[in-house]
């Protein structure tokens, strides 16, 4: 039980790591959900050359491994004269990457909204932006919740890769403690436990949305 003791004694490191993981993921979601929605609007509404360009960019980003994107952002920005510390470089790469996926998710969800809803809104003379705000987005928030939940879990998983560009997140903490105390099992088990906890919270949120959906649409 030596390992558990080690984890308990280095709880500060773990809490700091978990706080960094959480702040990265939350910051990323706060940025990438609105940008993803805007991107999806461009993907559905924009005239053809622009739309095609956007779709290609999104597809390209979805072909790149996240770690490589993080490396390119981390090492590339200084070349452009922008020096960021690892946390900010991590947040930026996580946001760009997640936004590409979310834009695709929202685009699919927009298309799944029943066309008669939109036609009815047109018939009532609602403006385009009002249709998005009042008709499409509220439905999308409910119907796309499971897919968005999956994406949030993926983002939590991806954030662990940022340890490689020396962001001090949860996996970094586990690795640090395990290397310093030569007890691999307990630190990694603790990290996995904390990740599980985060994913349970996300899944609980999705279930809650599911209940709302059942209540409204049967």
């Amino acid at each position, binding site marked *: 039980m030596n390992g558990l003791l080690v984890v308990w004694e280095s709880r500060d490191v773990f809490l700091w790591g978990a706080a960094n993981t959480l702040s990265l993921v939350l910051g990323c979601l706060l940025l990438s959900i609105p940008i993803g929605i805007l991107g999806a609007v461009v993907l559905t509404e924009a005239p053809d050359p622009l739309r095609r360009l956007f779709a290609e960019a999104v597809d*390209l980003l979805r*072909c*790149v*491994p*996240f*770690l*490589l*994107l993080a*490396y*390119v952002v981390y*090492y*590339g920005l200084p*070349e452009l004269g922008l020096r960021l510390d690892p946390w900010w470089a991590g947040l930026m790469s996580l946001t760009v990457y997640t936004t590409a996926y979310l834009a695709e998710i929202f685009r699919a969800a927009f298309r799944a909204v029943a066309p008669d809803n939109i036609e009815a809104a047109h018939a009532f003379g609602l403006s385009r932006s009002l249709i998005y705000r009042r008709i499409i987005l509220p439905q999308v928030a409910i119907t796309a919740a499971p897919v968005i939940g999956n994406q949030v*879990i993926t983002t*939590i*998983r*991806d*954030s*662990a*890769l940022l*340890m*490689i560009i020396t962001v001090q997140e*949860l*996996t970094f903490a*586990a*690795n640090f403690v*395990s290397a310093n105390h030569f007890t*691999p*099992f307990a630190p*990694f088990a603790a*990290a*996995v436990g904390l*990740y*599980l906890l*985060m*994913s*349970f919270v996300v899944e609980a949120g999705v279930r809650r949305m599911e209940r709302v959906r059942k209540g409204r649409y049967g």
Partner: protein
Amino acid sequence: MTWPAIRTILDGAVVTAALAAVSILLSLPLGLLLALLREGRIPGVPALLAAFVSLVRATPFVTLVLFVYFVLPAAGLELEPVPAAIVALTLNTAAFSSEIWRSALVTFPRDQREAAAAFGMSERATFIRIVFPQIWRANLGPLVSEVTILLKCTPAVAVIGVVEITRAAGRIGAETYEPLPPFLVATLIYTALIATLVRGQRVVERRIARRFGLARP
């Protein structure tokens, strides 16, 4: 970048491709096996597998790699970096693909199973002759997506010292003090690999469509 540097990264690409190929060949059948066991009737097994899948689903891949590499030796199973990488990749993709296989098994038309049973086919024969040929074709898309995710996971095995594309690029960056060009080349190679896979999927889908009509059952 010099030619030897590019050669080093290309050598890394061979390692990445080999790692991915071995892990795909191991993990997709293992995922199918997990799905079958989870739908099976052995008491306790479905619950255990469900727990395993949600554990892997929540664990970041790097954490899984570090876990396999550092923790299994403590349990008496010493693994070199490359086998450890294959084990981690296989566990990860098996867990995710088992969900794809499972949803295919659950939604498989019941009448076909009943018809096979009425013809006196054993459960095994039904699976091999009726169910499997249809579900792999119908789920080619999700399975290929899973494989592209596997490829996108491979850079994480660089942390335990496997010299694949990312690690090779990192080395060159450290030698030349210019990390950006090798990482851009590495990104290009990954993109090409993944785009090739997706293109391959489209070709196979077209062939299936030509031979069997629609690709869906």
